[in-house]
């Protein structure tokens, strides 16, 4: 009985530790990788965590206020290697899709958007065949 109880306790401790380790997504690491991909001339303004919680979260959405006469560049990096498995899509105020970083089955690092209309936009991150569901993105602007 004593051995059984010790086994149960050890198993429980292991399960808790394993669950916590699995759920961790070190977005900071991928944030730095994404920052390096930002083209010269673009000033970094925001970073975004892309943590799909091991597939439990299918979509991570952020709201942005973009300004006309400004170019925005988004760059991503993820645990699966580069932008693999990560998709960044921009929607306008009416939630109509404008464009996406996943084109013809190819995962791009991000996109460049020359904004001509000031307003609220929705930046959505989703996963396509991702194994890690983990990454980060950065946004830069240039006038």
């Amino acid at each position, binding site marked *: 009985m004593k051995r059984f109880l010790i086994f149960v*306790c050890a198993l429980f401790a292991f399960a*808790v530790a394993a669950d916590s380790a699995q759920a961790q997504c070190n977005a900071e690491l991928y944030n730095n990788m994404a920052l390096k991909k930002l083209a010269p001339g673009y*000033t*970094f303004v925001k970073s975004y965590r892309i943590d799909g919680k091991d597939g439990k979260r299918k979509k991570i959405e952020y709201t942005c206020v973009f*300004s006309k006469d400004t170019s925005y560049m988004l760059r991503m990096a993820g645990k699966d290697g580069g932008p693999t498995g990560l998709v960044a899509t921009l929607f306008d*105020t009416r939630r109509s899709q*404008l464009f*996406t970083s996943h084109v013809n089955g190819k995962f*791009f690092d991000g996109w460049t958007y020359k904004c001509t209309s000031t307003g609220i936009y929705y930046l959505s991150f989703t996963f396509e065949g991702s194994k890690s569901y983990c990454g980060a993105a950065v946004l830069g602007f240039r*006038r």
Partner: protein
Amino acid sequence: MSLFLSFKLYKVIMRKSYKAALWIICLAFMFAACDDSKPAKNGETANAGNEAEMQNEQQKDADDEKSDSPMQASVITDIIKSIPSPLEVSFLIKESGTSYLKNELNDHKKVDNYTNSYSKALNLGVYSTDLGYANIYEKNQDALLYLNSVKKLADGLNIGQFFDYHTIKKLTQSGNDMDTLLRLTTTNFEDINNELQNQGREHLSILILAGGWIEATHLIGLVYEENKDEKLREKLGEQKIVLERIMLVLDYYKNKSNIEDFINDLKELQSVYKRIKIIEERGDPIIEITDDGPVVTDTRKSTVEINDQDVAEIKSLLSSIRSKIVD
């Protein structure tokens, strides 16, 4: 619960009842593992001297946080994150060809006048805008003075450890790596905001952002008066969108000290902004696929309807609200 279990454990060990003790350990372990009620990470790197003060403030803040609003924390975080960086405005101002307006910025020496969390947070925002503005104009000496004020206020709010003062100071002194300097400053402010949100002190985040926004919008008004650049006039009108978002979050914290008065001042400003219209002409984006990913040019166009009287009223109200913050 844990006290009860400890007492039980003590009693059974005293009776040398091994099995029962092990069962209780397992139960206690399970209770501890399942306890979701513990607060989020609480500034682990904050120094010990400031911890008690911070806890007091957090307790006070927690007591304040009795709002009827059903807004979720994630919604607040999203709104806070959506507020544009004042750097965008500072770049536009420089692009308009205006000289550096040193005398219009907040005096760095006033930093010691800000003694409560409310004024520290608002002025941290004001000084951070001034710091970015001075950096963009490559006024290294001024930037260093603002950097010191920012650091002092951040320390006063127990978030100074997230500000890489020494590296930023070195970059400012050398003055030859603007990109890295702006990147590091922005990253540090993001870390500060994240930490305040982790600590459940989001109201300070929105005050920092609101202070920064007021300073940047005040500068747009001043520069527009000088050069009558149409882009600045439009930019002043476009701030309607940002103000709406700031108000959404501030309203959630209206029960906190001083915030209600601040909201009332901003409501007056918002009433002028309600007259301003942002009109959008529809169009489809033109997408070009390059090796670096899609490059998209929008064909929609927004225009802002704002007249001289609106501009004058906005400028006057901004100036009065700013004076209450900095003086």
